[in-house]
């Protein structure tokens, strides 16, 4: 229940930045436009102070239906000890704060926090509630870890 509440507040937070700043770094913005925004999603109690996922962008413009045109999207997920697990970047995407989905036909990149996995492709759908990502085309992955080929050393 509290998890859902966190998502709800996260969505509300993302919406609020259209009218005002949502973090210390953000600027006071005119209605309908935001820059340098951040939206955090937290772990469930008893780790409610720990950030689980952070969605940020350099700029957001409102679109019909309540979604946002986000530039320089950056999604980071964290482990309980605060280490970055995954970082997703996209130059542009449409983000719907109320259903927690981001999508784009453009290019995107994903990298694990330890830098051992790097993925890029064209066209994606990010589902915030399930922390899942679908890349639609031309997926290219680099894995700096043995085992991916099963047979190679």
């Amino acid at each position, binding site marked *: 229940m509290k998890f859902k509440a966190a998502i709800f507040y996260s969505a509300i937070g993302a919406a609020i930045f259209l009218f005002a700043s949502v973090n210390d770094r953000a600027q006071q913005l005119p209605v309908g436009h935001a820059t340098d925004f951040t939206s955090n999603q937290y772990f469930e109690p008893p780790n409610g102070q720990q950030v689980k996922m952070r969605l940020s962008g350099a700029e957001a413009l409102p679109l019909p239906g309540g979604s946002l045109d986000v530039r320089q999207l950056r999604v980071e997920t964290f482990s309980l000890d605060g280490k970055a697990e995954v970082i997703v970047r996209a130059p542009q995407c449409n983000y719907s704060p109320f259903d927690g989905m981001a999508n784009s036909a453009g290019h995107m990149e994903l990298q694990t926090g330890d830098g051992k996995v790097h993925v890029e492709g064209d066209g994606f759908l990010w589902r915030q509630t399930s922390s899942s990502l679908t890349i639609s085309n031309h997926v290219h992955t680099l894995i700096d870890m*043995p085992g991916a080929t099963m047979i190679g050393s």
Partner: protein
Amino acid sequence: MKKIIFILTVSVCGAVMAETNMQLSLPLTLHTNAPVAKVKAPAKPKPPTEIDSDTADFDLNIHQAIYRGHVLVVDQQVRMTCAWMLVDLPTGGQHLSHVVATTNVVVDFTNEQGEKYHVTAKKAVYDYKVVNTVTNETVTFVGNPIVETTNSTIYSEPMVWDRASNRFHFNEPRMISKDTGTNSPSQKLF
């Protein structure tokens, strides 16, 4: 006398294996019967493995990637293609622990001695785990697995490559030696 004992021992071993239908364990260098030696990692850092596919799904909660469509996996020694591949991505891990490839799995592998292997199967499963400092690393091929080497073609269901000991384990294998020509009838090993 020693010669007779040796021949007798080999015969008995062969008979026991034939009767019990047990799994065979052959060295990787099948055609030479060379002693088993673990392949040492090269000293210089390897370039990362590359995976290309049409689409991919990443579940960041369970750290799992699923690749679909024209999956191509390439590194210095291996080229593998399949239609679907699942990869568990351990966080902070130094080694992938579980990989499953299905549908038209084709693996071309060149070992450090330059020997080439061509493996086909419907499915391949890679598992890696360390239990009490013992490393278990296997690749299990199922679905009409076939391994072709320079000199032979081996059929086995399943076919397990124990990478820790660098040995293939075959079950009721059939081997066709290319030295005798491919038109000759297939011979059952042992």
